[in-house]
């Protein structure tokens, strides 16, 4: 701040007259209002609020006034400066906002440009199908059991009432290991997990077991030396075929949609008695008259073969040390690959095992 004016000159005081102060102020406000951009505003600030601006000069003069005049002049100049500063601030905000708006317009991009810097990965649909099935049963309180693929002959066959001279052994063309007296096979079904589970746990048992199995089938559109099965096993008191039917009806509906229930047909599996094959209501034509006749999926039958099931043969319970007087069980087995093909409409089994990323990528990472 400047000190008191020692060279007091009454002539110089004239600018502090009220009209003059108001005039300078209005001039400043007009210049600020007229500034069209931040550069013009900066000039207006220099001209009207800078150190050499009339109001600044006037302010400096106040000290030179006679003491009786100072108060009034001070008030007058101070109010004028405040009005100018306020206008400056307001105008700055307006112009900055306008400038940013312009900038944002200039920063426009084409958001339709493609993404894909890192192609997405995927999990195999059979993995997803297995997990999907496991989750259906886990949600009911079942647990997921597992076993190895290279399996002891005793667990794959004998313990399941498939003795060495059982004709049904030839139903499942088996990969054997060398030498033959090692008594090892590539498991032909997930059923040895039944035996393992019963040997390792005590009832009540409610398990589901998805897994890989092997048969000596050549590889074509409908056969594969390796495929996937899901095995279900329940051993508890008071278990009946009705529980088996209920479990499979629920499974079928969850997998294929409401109204897709099952049909049992008498069949034969050494490890179950009674045994049944499970058919599904054809999920394409639903067996509706007039449609079923032309259905290619079920070939006009209205039913589709899905898997096998039955009441656990008491001989199997005995081999696994479970009291068959007290407990009864049921078991079922379905093809996961086949179920997946039903669900997805895939027609060639080979697509599942040749590793083309275009196939698996269609199914994402989870269902």
């Amino acid at each position: 701040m400047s000190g008191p004016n020692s060279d007091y000159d009454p002539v110089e005081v004239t600018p502090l007259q009220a009209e003059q102060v108001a005039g300078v102020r209005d001039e400043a406000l007009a210049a600020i209002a007229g500034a069209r951009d931040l550069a013009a505003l900066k000039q207006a600030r220099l001209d009207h609020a800078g150190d050499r601006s009339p109001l600044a000069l006037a302010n400096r003069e106040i000290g030179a006034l006679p003491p009786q005049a100072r108060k009034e002049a001070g008030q007058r100049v101070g109010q004028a400066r405040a009005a100018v500063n306020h206008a400056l601030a307001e105008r700055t905000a307006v112009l900055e906002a306008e400038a940013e708006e312009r900038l944002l317009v200039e920063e426009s991009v084409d958001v339709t440009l493609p993404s894909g810097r890192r192609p997405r990965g995927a999990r195999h649909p059979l993995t997803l199908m297995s997990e999907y099935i496991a989750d259906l049963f886990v949600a009911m309180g079942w647990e997921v059991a597992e076993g190895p693929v290279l399996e002891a002959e005793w667990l794959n066959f004998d313990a399941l009432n498939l003795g060495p001279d059982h004709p049904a052994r030839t139903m499942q063309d088996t990969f054997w290991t060398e030498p033959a007296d090692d008594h090892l096979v590539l498991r032909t079904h997930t059923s040895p997990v039944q035996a393992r589970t019963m040997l390792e746990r005590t009832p009540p048992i409610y398990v589901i077991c998805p897994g890989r199995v092997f048969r000596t089938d050549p590889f074509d559109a409908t056969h594969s030396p390796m495929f996937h099965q899901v095995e279900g096993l329940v051993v508890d008191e008071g278990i009946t075929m009705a529980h088996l039917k209920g479990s499979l009806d629920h499974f079928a509906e969850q997998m294929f949609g409401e109204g897709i229930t099952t049909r049992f047909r008498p069949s034969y599996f050494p490890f179950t008695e009674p045994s049944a094959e499970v058919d599904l209501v054809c999920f394409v034509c639903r067996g509706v008259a007039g449609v079923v006749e032309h259905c290619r999926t079920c070939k006009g039958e209205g039913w589709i073969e899905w898997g096998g099931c039955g009441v656990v043969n008491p001989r199997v319970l005995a081999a696994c040390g479970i009291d068959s007087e007290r407990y009864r069980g049921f078991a079922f087995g379905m093809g996961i690959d086949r179920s997946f093909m039903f669900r997805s409409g895939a027609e060639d089994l080979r697509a599942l095992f040749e590793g083309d990323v275009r196939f698996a990528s269609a199914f994402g990472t989870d269902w």
Partner: protein
Amino acid sequence: MRAPVSWIREYAELPPDLPTEELARKLTMLGLKLEALERPGDHIRGPLVVGRVLTVEAEPQKNGKTINWCTVDVGDANGTGDPQGVVCGAHNFAAGDLVVVVLPGGVLPGNFEISARQTYGHVSAGMICSSRELGIGDDHTGIIVLEPGAGEPGDDARPVLGLDEEVIEFEINPDRAYALSLRGVAREAAMGFGSAYADPCRRDVPAANADGYPVRVEDPAGCPVFVARTVTGLDPTAESPEWLRTRVRLAGMRPISLAVDVTNYVMLETGRPIHGYDGDRLQGTIVVRRATPGERLTTLDGADRELSTEDLVVCDDSGAIGLGGVMGGETTEMSAATTTVVIEAAHWDPVSMFRSGKRHRLTSEAGRRNERGVDPTICEVAADRVAELLTTYGGGTVSPGVTVVGTPPEPEPIPLPIGLSSQVAGLPIADEVVVANLRAIGAEVTGDADLAVTPPPWRPDLTDPYDLVEEVVRIVGYDQVPSVVPVPPVGRGLTRQQRLRRRIGRTLAGLGCVEVVSFPFVGDETFEALGLPDDDVIRHAVRLSNPLSSEKPLYATTLLPGVLDAAARNLGRGATGVALFETGTVAFPTDRGPAPVYGVEWRPSAAELEKLFDAIPAQPLFLAAVLAGERDPDGWWGEGRDADWSDALEIVRGLARELGVDVEIRQASRMPWHPSRCGQVWLGDVEIGHAGELHPRVCRTYGLPRGTAVLEIDLDALMARSPEIPPAPVVSHQPLAKEDVSLVVDDSVPASAVEAALRAGAGDLLESIRLFDVFTGPQVGEGKKSLAFALRFRAHDRTLTEAETAAARDAAVSSAARTLGARQR
């Protein structure tokens, strides 16, 4: 099993208007599954009639062929009653024969439309048909000549040929061997519809006497019953009647000669396989025994076989003349000159049949029945039926001698609590229904609450109470079983391992990799392709005795071949880059085998089970991944890049981080990796796999671009170290202090060692450390490199002073200097 419907109806008095679809559906629901319903005449339309050949004029042609210009009486079928002129190329007929003629307007299988056409100088108005042209056989050597009296000229030929027949083909399960006969199928059909049933095996037969062909059974356990009958004076030129040939053919067997057709017919009818010997070629007593060591036999299929001492053989004075119950021998085979037939109807031990069939890789209609179990009580009936048919159609006489050796085994009664069926089915079944259903299958039932059920002799599969339950319930109808969801006790959800496996898959997919599933079969060629040294441990694999491909007889010890093949396949199909992963078990042989085979009457002991589980090869879960070609594509965002060695390590580290496990990477050299670009993955003191660049030679072998990145690690080992829920960190709110240091070290010093040294020296204040630049060049000197690290320090309780931070940094640098000779730039 193929069952002509008219044949079923011969024994089962089914409703006349019963649609065959309904019959097939009912039998399917009883357990005889419909495989196919055939109507052989379906592919033939229009006039197909019986014709009598009136004249045959042979006309040699310029092309060397001779055709026959025939006139055929087709009655009124041609609308005029005049003889029909037909050109025929076959020569196996003469004037007066009855033949099958398709007239113009007719359509044969394959949509072959018949019209009158000009050929060989005649208008041929139709065609005289062969079996093959009608789609009912393979015989094309001549036209069909019907037996005299088969029909009148102008008659529809379809019924004569069985073309109006319907055939149901069933899939018969191994337990229902009785349904491998019309007798059995008809019984089920009659039961299904509550119809009357006439058992074709209900037949009076002459009693056994001492005048029959001499037979001695030395192994009654293997052959409990042996019946022999003899027919002499057969006309060797006699052929099977058309109806019999038709039935045999419709049932899926090839008509051959009267004697063979008759034995096949009776087998189809009764289920009992029959063997016929040329009686003139038999020498002395028939003996049934086990084969002697080294004994050989040439079977009917012409194969010379070395027999096992477990094989049951039928012999005469000349030695073995048949593999009992499986296949006859060549020396006593019936031929076109046979006039004496010795008929064998014998019951064989199913286990022995199964073993012999398997041992000699012989499958036959007879063997299929014998190994599943045939009614042992019908040997005499079946032999008598054969003798009857042979003499009816082939002349000759049945010798009065009847040889019967042995008696059929008696079925044991099975105890059955009367309520068991209901309890097992979860369906109320009245006691009367239980008893009625058991009687319906031919069982004898006695008792009240506790039944004693003696199964019929044709049901050797019924041995346990639960077998009877299945019979009771299937007749009630499986469709009657209600649907009740069982309520299990509280479950524990997925195990940690199961959850981790899912997480691993999701993590890898998140890293841009696509999962593949390959067959786990490898071979020496696979190991060569991977460039593995001869003594590499993973060459030691479990060998399959019957691999699909002789080039891949081993069970995989590595998942790399599968992902490499798949990567090459994707690139070959036009992909510019590919990132694949596979998780799966591999197998490492154990030397703790062989796996024991225990009995099944009771649970093996704990020690026995341990021995069993121990003998099974270790099968750890592995992960393999491959990244080949473009990893990040070029785009509007800038340049992309191809995959390189570091992508493999990035994935290993990313996965380990996701699982909360610290892995250490060490420089290593191992095929199939690039010898200088291979990282060994360590978890503490356990090596769990490798990651890096694929050896250029292996890239070439697989057709993959140089620089392809691969990894393979043991996921079981990784998962085992994954903490369930890690301890919560204390997150400091104090300000961060940053210090960057550049250290010059020898080229050979691994970056991980420098980082470890810095970390060790920096003390507790160090929050993180990150290598952000690697620099080589003249400024740092020959054989040296400069590593730039960003150190981040923070205290929990205060703002660090510059002096504290600097001291920590200096301590870090001097630690690296001391242990690795690092020099700060």
